[in-house]
Every structure is written in structure tokens, then in C-alpha cells.
């Protein structure tokens, strides 16, 4: 894929985020490098504790970074920045959270929840315009204007998540970070929310960063995937490439662990456990390298050579 001529919206360079516990340093994100192009859905996949949410939170400045830089439309947005830039960022980058119950103020009406951003940024001329904006946002997520006077607890999980989406959409953002937006929802509701997010992407040319642990959803939903393990991005590739030619053993184990809803397939499956300590980690320090255009893998020279052989073999014999 020729990525060069696409517009880079967000770029993360050598990002490092550390947490301290009594001077004991814990590096939650280590040397993360990736770019998100305008109009795409970029997925960050990994297990709990792998650092995926930490990356997201450092993009919206909720976690201070300890090294590296984050550029949004070419402008540095981590570390100290001007008030103006901060304001711009908060307006244009919105986040949808995992737990719709915890992310809405339970003492505020839906009207207020959705309007809060508009109030803070004075994004309306008069009361009538604000109301129109809120109504439009609610309707676009399939809720009714008469829901405005209700409180979050009066809604089901799926509806609450729609409110969460509505309050992000009302800001007319360019970039949305969705942190496991459907994990807390029921199976039949998940599809509704995913379709909704896709609709907005098409209608408004939004860019998404989609954080998930469920690869089956990611495969359907995203254009490119980054796999993260213990704070380290181990592989980045376009979705179809990652599923066809997974190289890093951790990516492999993730793909292998996804239960397939098919009893015959599932019952004949073997269990492979990824154990980093059993890997041959000799050779010089690995880093994220591009093995094919757009396909990156975390490797050193020796591993790179191995992956090259493996990849050639897979490319020549697509059906295993």
C-alpha cells in the first residue's frame, strides 16, 4: 500500500510513558512509533495491561509522557503546550469510553451530558442552536429528543453508549479515540454500535483510533492494526495483511486464541501458549522494522531474516 501520499493526522514518535510508585519506575509504553492517516480506522490491539489505553490517554493529555513526541497535524501536543493548542485539541479529539455507565455524570440529564462540550467551548450562538445541535446528535445515534430530560440510569447499556457517542459527535471532532467501546455491551447491541460508528466515519470522514482486545471485531472494523504487548508495539500492518501473514509470535498467539464460533473448527484446535521466556532472544536489541511496505515487525537482524523466510513461504503458498 502506498501510504506516502496519504495525509498523516497523528504521529507518535518514540513515545514512552512511565508511572512511578515510590520512585520505582514502571515503563507502561516503550518506544512506540506509529502514524494514523486521515480517514482511516487504526486499531490498537493487546491484552489488559499492555499499555494501549495509556497510549490513548497520553494522546488526549490525560497521562503525561516521559519521552518522545506526539504530533497532531504536525504540531506537538505532548508536554507543555499553549492554552490555544490545548483548546483546539480537546475540541477536535474526542474519546468514547469503555464503560458507558461510568463515563456519564449520573446526576446530570442527557441534555446536559451531551451539551457540556458545547458549553465549555461556546459552540452555539443561542439556546435554540444548542438545542438543535443536541437534538441532531441524539437523533443521529438513534435516540429521541424527548430522551433529553432523562438521566443516564434510565437507559440500557447500549443506549448509554449511544449517549457517549452523541456527546463526542456533537463536538464535530476530526479524530475519535474509542477505547473498547463495545466490550461492555451485549452481543446483539454491539453490532448496532459498530454500524453507527461506521456510519459516522463515512458521512463525516472521521478518523478513528480503535482500542480493542477482540480481534474478530477489529478485523471487521479497522483498516490497519497495531499489536501491542507489554508496552511494546510488536507488529503493525494493514488488516488483511496481518491476518494473512502474521509474523511476530505474539500476534500469532493472539490470533490463535480467538475462539471461532464454529464447533468443528474450535474443537479441533490446539492450544499454543506464548511464553516470551522460551524464545530465543539472542542477538542485538530488536526494534520495529518495515519488512514489507506498511508491514512492520519488532525484530533484530536474526529474527528479521527468519521472518523474511517465513513471509516468502506464506506468500508463495497462501493456502497452508
Amino acid at each position, binding site marked *: 500500500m502506498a501510504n506516502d501520499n496519504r495525509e498523516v493526522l497523528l504521529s507518535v514518535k518514540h513515545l514512552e510513558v512511565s508511572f512511578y510508585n515510590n520512585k520505582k519506575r514502571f515503563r507502561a509504553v516503550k518506544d512506540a512509533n506509529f502514524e494514523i492517516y486521515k480517514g482511516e480506522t487504526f486499531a490498537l490491539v493487546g491484552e489488559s495491561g499492555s499499555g494501549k489505553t495509556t497510549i490513548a490517554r497520553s494522546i488526549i493529555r490525560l497521562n503525561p509522557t516521559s519521552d518522545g513526541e506526539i504530533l497532531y497535524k504536525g504540531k506537538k501536543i505532548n508536554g507543555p503546550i499553549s492554552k490555544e493548542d490545548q483548546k483546539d485539541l480537546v475540541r477536535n479529539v474526542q474519546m468514547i469510553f469503555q464503560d458507558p455507565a461510568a463515563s456519564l455524570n449520573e446526576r446530570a440529564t442527557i441534555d446536559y451530558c451531551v451539551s457540556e462540550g458545547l458549553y465549555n467551548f461556546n459552540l452555539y450562538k443561542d439556546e435554540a442552536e444548542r438545542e438543535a445541535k443536541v437534538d441532531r446528535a441524539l437523533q443521529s445515534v438513534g435516540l429521541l429528543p424527548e430522551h433529553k430530560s432523562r438521566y443516564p440510569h434510565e437507559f440500557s447499556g447500549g443506549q448509554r453508549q449511544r449517549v457517549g457517542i452523541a456527546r463526542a459527535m456533537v463536538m464535530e471532532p476530526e479524530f475519535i479515540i474509542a477505547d473498547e467501546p463495545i466490550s461492555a455491551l451485549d452481543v*446483539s447491541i454491539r453490532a448496532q454500535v459498530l454500524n453507527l460508528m461506521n456510519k459516522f466515519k463515512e458521512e463525516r470522514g472521521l478518523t478513528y483510533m480503535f482500542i480493542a482486545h477482540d480481534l474478530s471485531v477489529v478485523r471487521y472494523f479497522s483498516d490497519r492494526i497495531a499489536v501491542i504487548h507489554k508496552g511494546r508495539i510488536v507488529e503493525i500492518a494493514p488488516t488483511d495483511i496481518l491476518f494473512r501473514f502474521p509474523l511476530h509470535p505474539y500476534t500469532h498467539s493472539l490470533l490463535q486464541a480467538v475462539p*471461532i464460533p464454529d464447533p468443528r473448527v474450535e474443537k479441533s484446535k490446539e492450544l499454543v501458549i506464548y511464553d516470551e521466556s522460551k524464545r530465543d532472544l539472542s542477538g542485538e536489541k530488536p526494534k520495529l522494522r518495515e519488512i514489507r511496505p506498511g508491514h512492520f515487525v519488532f525484530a533484530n537482524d536474526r529474527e528479521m531474516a527468519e521472518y523474511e523466510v517465513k513471509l516468502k513461504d506464506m506468500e508463495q503458498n497462501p493456502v497452508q
Partner: protein
Amino acid sequence: MEDNKNNIILSAKDVVVKFKVRERTLTAIRRVSFDFPEGKVVAIVGESGSGKSVFTKTFTGMLDINGRIDSGEILFEGQDLAKFKTEKEWLTIRGKKIATVFQDPMTSLNPVRTIGYQIAEVIIKHQGKSKEEAKKEAISLMERVGIYDAERRYDEYPFQYSGGMRQRIVIAIALACHPKILICDEPTTALDVTIQAQIIHLIKDLSKEYGFTTIYITHDLGVVANVADIVAVMYGGQIIEYGNVEEIFYNPKHPYTWGLLSSLPQLGEKGHELFAIRGTPPSLFEEIKGDAFAPRSDYAMKIDFEEEPPFFKVSDTHFAKTWLLDPRAPKVDPPETIQNLHEKMVAITAKGGIYGER
């Protein structure tokens, strides 16, 4: 599976469970009957609020304080558990004969007691063994559920264990009394996929080794495909379809089962809308008339809104509660999306069931 006539280990008959919520009554389980065959893994699938957890909680007397079994029988070892009143009666069953593994291992373990103490306690109490014997058995159980260096980790506390390891301990505690039935209530939902695969594998192995019957509650159809011999699908407080796992996946009959399978993200094609069941589940505060799924179903007929369907027989092991199976109903094929499910799933998995394109 259908070869030998299975012994029924537990049989629920017309169970009705009601909850008092403030001034109102909620009917969580609406006349559910089900026979659990001995030694099998029965998966109960459903969304939150479908009643899957509540149903199995009646087997161990663990309904919340505002809930009660309104009517029906739960037959187990010649006793009707639905008639149990006192905690003393329940203690002869709960943990001892029917044990439960819950979703969140941190809340099932006592944070201020060592792991070893919590396992040994159960062995001492239920098997009447001495402290030394109990410790020995606890360590061997820990090893059996995959804790390395069990002897050293015996004296550690729950917070020193990872989520997956804690869930292994909960399983070890459940096994300490050699239960006849192990209820697994979403045991892997809080865990990562790679850990989930290991825990499921462990439960399956242990069920063979210890010979217990497993009731596995989940909403994840992938997990169902892996663990289940028999699947029961619940919706709106009722079982609406049940059968052998292959019958449910490859020849489902109820429109709700069709909807669940159709909305699988694995079947979604990029750039196309994912199938979504419209609407939301019914409120259990109100009386449900007819087929509970009718308002959300694309296949609802007039009668679905008027009269509750009975179970229609599909095969000796497969039954579905939908009017579509009535001989008078028009013939309806399941949606295109889920026809030839196996071929479609094979197409998206590489050799050995690894998720990926061929």
C-alpha cells in the same frame, strides 16, 4: 453424543423466579424446564438480563435476597432443591455437590487470607482432613490447575496473583470438594483472550478427569463452540432453543438464535453493515405475551404476539420454541449470512483453527 442414554443429573421443571424490586415484581425466569445430562458440558447462552445466571443460581440457593423461586421443581439426587428453606439445607449442596466459579476471581477470594489457607480451609471443612493432609492436597490441586512452584506460592495472597492465576485458584477451591456439578458463570469474561483459552482448556480437562458435569454460562458464541456438548439459548427469561452444539450452530431454528449468529463480527464483510438485531430485550416487569422475541424479529407472525409457542421437536436432541416450526407456518429459511456457517468459518481460519485468512 446421542448414542448412550444419558443419566439426568439435575432436572429443572417449570421453574419460575421472581424478584421484588421496590414495589414491583420482576419475573426473571418464566417456566423453564431443562434436564442436565451427567458428564456433559451444557452451555447456556444469552444476553445480560436473559436469566442465565439467575437460572443457575437457583441450583445453589444463591438468589439475591429479594428473589425467590415462585414455583417449579429442581430435582437433584432425589431431592427437590426448590423446597429448600434454610441455609443448613443448602450447605449440604452448595460447594459440596454443586460448586460455582464466578466471573470475577478477585471478589470470590478473600484478600486478607493466603491462597493456600483458602484452599485448605475447604478441604478441612468438607473432607474432614487434618491440616497437614489438607496442605498436601491443596498443593497438589494448585499444581493440577497449573500453578508453577505451588509450594512457594501457597503462602502468597490473592493480590500477588494475576487474574488468570486467581481464576485457576477459584477453580481449585471449587474442585476441592469433588463436586458433581461445576457451574462456570462467565469465568473468562474478565480475562484476556490468551488466558481465556488456557482456562477453558483447563476446565475441559478437569471435567474429564474428575467426571463432573459442567454448566457453562457465557455470551460468547466462540467460547460455546469450544466447550459445549449441548447448548441452551436463553431469551427473556426462557430457554428458547436447545440442542447439541452442532445442531445449534449449523441448523438453528429460532429467529433469535439466527440473530445472534448473524451478528457475529466474523461474518461481517468490510464496507457492509453488520447485521444487528433491532430494538432491545423485553422488560421483565411486564407480562410477556406470545413469543418474547416477536417485537424484534423479522419473522414474527400474528400468532407470535398472541400466544406463547410450545417447543417443537427438530430432532431427538434438538428443540426450538418458535411458531415457525408449526406445520401451518410458512416455510422460512434462515438468513443467508448464517447458511453454510462451517464453510464460512473455515474460509477465515488457517490450519489448526488459527484466526486468519487462508
